[in-house]
């Protein structure tokens, strides 16, 4: 899934030893999802799994096996932090609830990322990633006023928000432990993480009795504000004009057409009063050139603008190339593929993306013998018992 793996990705890329614990019986469900590299199915071939688990180790451990607790105990004893995103109560059923972990290691930091928190009347509610985005209140922010809302349908935004908050909480908890010697259990709700981003809309409801309503791409204080069709098949460029000065920039960029001098376009208020007409007029200009040309002309003129980019364009983007945002790793089964560097660059200890995402159980032996310090005999004995499957 997304929320758990993303919570540790940045830590792995900045030097933490992150061990992903899975089992063949119960692998990360992303391993079974599309896209499969080259269209060939396989437990190590999921593009999304390999996208969010680079620079981690993978150990296979069957948590339902009777000998799982003794191996889990060794892992917890070694670890600083345990991150999990099972449904609530699953860890307890495996004997790995926070109280169990504390008995193994008193100052352990446990971070639990779930849809709605570990307890409460809806804690066990089930839903796909995008559902939680709707539950968090985003549905009325996406759609046209004359149609039903449309999404989001592919981007599990709350998973990602939850995992960033989890990363932040982990780092805070480590410092807290350094200061006080105390660990803690953090119980994080992805849906609540989503709600925090809507704070201003919530205050607007409380203070002004306004609930969110669908507005397409319009903006209360900006006009024009939207995406405009450009030359080619389904090509678009976003344009946002917040001030009358920016409006003048836009007019100049379009070659100061005769219509643009009409007084009805002079102020934001007057432009908003005739917004549909204005959009048609601007689109007559944008449609004549490629989205890249529109963006280039507008940016040169100081107008806020940007192409509606596809994945292919992102991968070829010169700014991202400059920042080494996408990097290539060599995966033993899939071959070369892209991974994504952090959105921040640290001047002294920048992220290092060295390893592709692990194959299922790829590092079981390494983890047991090198990290946990088991003897070869101990390891072989565990392999034979079947607990490491």
């Amino acid at each position, binding site marked *: 899934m997304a929320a758990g793996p993303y919570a540790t990705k940045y830590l792995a890329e*900045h030097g933490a030893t992150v061990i992903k614990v899975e089992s063949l019986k119960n692998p990360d469900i992303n391993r079974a999802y599309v*896209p*499969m*590299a080259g*269209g060939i199915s396989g437990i190590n071939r999921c593009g*999304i799994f390999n996208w969010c688990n680079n620079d981690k180790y993978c150990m296979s451990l069957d948590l339902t096996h009777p000998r799982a607790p003794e191996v889990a105990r060794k892992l917890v004893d070694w670890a600083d932090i345990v991150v999990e995103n099972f449904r609530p109560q699953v860890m307890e059923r495996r004997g790995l609830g926070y109280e169990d972990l504390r008995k193994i290691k008193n100052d352990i930091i446990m971070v639990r990322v779930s849809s*709605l*928190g570990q307890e*409460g*009347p809806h804690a066990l509610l*089930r839903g*796909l990633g995008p*559902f939680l985005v709707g*539950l*968090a*209140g985003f*549905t009325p*922010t996406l759609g046209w006023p004359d149609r*039903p*809302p*449309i*999404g*989001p*349908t*592919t*981007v599990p935004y709350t998973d990602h928000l939850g995992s960033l908050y*989890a990363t*932040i*909480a982990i780092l*805070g908890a480590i410092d807290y432990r*350094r200061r006080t010697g105390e660990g*803690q*259990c953090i119980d994080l709700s992805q849906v*609540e993480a989503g*709600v925090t981003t*809507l704070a*201003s809309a919530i*205050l607007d409801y409380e*203070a*002004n009795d306004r*609930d*969110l309503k669908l507005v397409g791409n319009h903006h209360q204080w900006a006009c024009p504000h939207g*995406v405009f069709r450009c030359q080619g098949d389904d090509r678009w460029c*976003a344009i*946002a004009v*917040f001030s009358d000065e920016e409006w003048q920039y836009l007019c100049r960029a379009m070659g100061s057409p005769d219509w643009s001098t009409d007084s009805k376009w002079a102020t934001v208020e007057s432009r908003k009063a005739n917004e549909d007409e204005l959009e048609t007029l601007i689109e007559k200009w944008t449609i004549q050139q490629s989205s890249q040309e529109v963006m280039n002309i507008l*940016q040169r003129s100081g107008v806020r*603008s*940007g*192409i*509606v*980019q596809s*994945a292919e364009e*992102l*991968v070829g983007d010169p700014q991202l190339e400059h*920042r080494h945002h996408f990097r290539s790793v060599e995966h033993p089964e899939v071959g070369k593929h892209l991974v994504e560097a952090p*959105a*921040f660059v*640290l001047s*002294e200890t920048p992220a290092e993306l060295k390893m592709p995402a692990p194959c299922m159980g790829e590092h079981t032996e390494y983890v047991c013998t090198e990290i946990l310090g088991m003897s070869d005999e101990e390891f072989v004995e565990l392999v034979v018992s079947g607990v490491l499957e």
Partner: protein
Amino acid sequence: MTHLLSPYRVLDLTNEYGLFCGKVLADLGADVIKIEMPGGDPSRNFGTFYEDIPDPEKNLEWFAFNTNKKSITLNIETPEGQAILKKLVKSADFLIESFHPGHMEDLGLGYTVLSELNPRIIVTSITPFGQSGPYRDYRVSDIVTLALSGFMIQCGDPDRAPLRYSVEQAHIMASLHATAGSLIAFHHAQATGEGQHVDVSMYEAAIWFQYSLVPFWDVASVHLRREGPRASRGNASFRLIWPCRDGYINWRLVAGPMGKTMYALVDWMGEEGMAGDLRSVNWTMDMNDVTQEQAYAWEEGFGAFFLSHTKAELLDGAVKREIMLTPASTVEDLLNNPQFEARDFWVDVEHPELGTSLKYPGTPFKSTQNFPDEKYRSPLIGEHNVAIYIEELGIPENELASLKQSGVI
């Protein structure tokens, strides 16, 4: 109060791109000082206002993104202002800023200068594209960043323009990344005494949220496209947002291992005489074997059932019967959500100047350390000038008055 970050001080020089970063740090206990231009931060003038009265002390975005911070006014474009900032830098743990790249250097306040004053300090810069590169000077807004990021190409009706969230999100994406990056740098500083500069790109932060978009293209040459309320899975597309009697819900037809939740829904429909042919479908079939015709036909039955129920009824059924279904919340729904209530998510924040209190979203996690989730309303302009300038820095009152007169404070 003790919290995750209570011993640490943050100097917050951000504009609307980075206010949320300081807020998250402040909500986790850090002592965050928002440094405003004399007269108030420009971001106080844009947005919605309490009771729609345009007033820099009543700006709702300001309220939302500056809780638990202190405020001082300081003009860092003057030599006196720079000298005061440098004094504050000496004892700060973090400085966050979101000026145009190069602006801090132009003021003689670049990272090199600040790190000489305080080698441990973490300086975090939040800008649209990062400190360097061909797009460095490009101008953006929320919709522009979301367009470039790959969000919009996945979002909208196929016969109309791509769409974005109408509540601005790019600054949140950037700010959360800035917080995480700053704390990673801080962890290193705690271990080694070495500070560093954290260069955050709002553009890249937004791309990070797009999840499967690039992998689909990279490993399978598939372009994700906007499909309205639907999304493709296997050989068909499926609807995710459904009208019900009083709003919308999220539900999608699933098959395969998750298919057992379908039986629970069909059973419920059967109890109300609305299951029809859906009773005979094998929901454990491979999702990839569902054809588009089957999807449409089956969806029709489910859609009719949803239309005959309210959000609350459907939620109740989903909880009791373990059906994968959630209501799509309005703001009103959020404020009345019993799950949030049970977790004490909402925090009442007193606004004495308005003679009222408002509910704010709390921190989205709870700790067994039981940290208090208290919030103080966002500061008034220069509310803490006396506390910081006189009580802490020991600037004499008459000097403060003359700094005020000359527009430094």
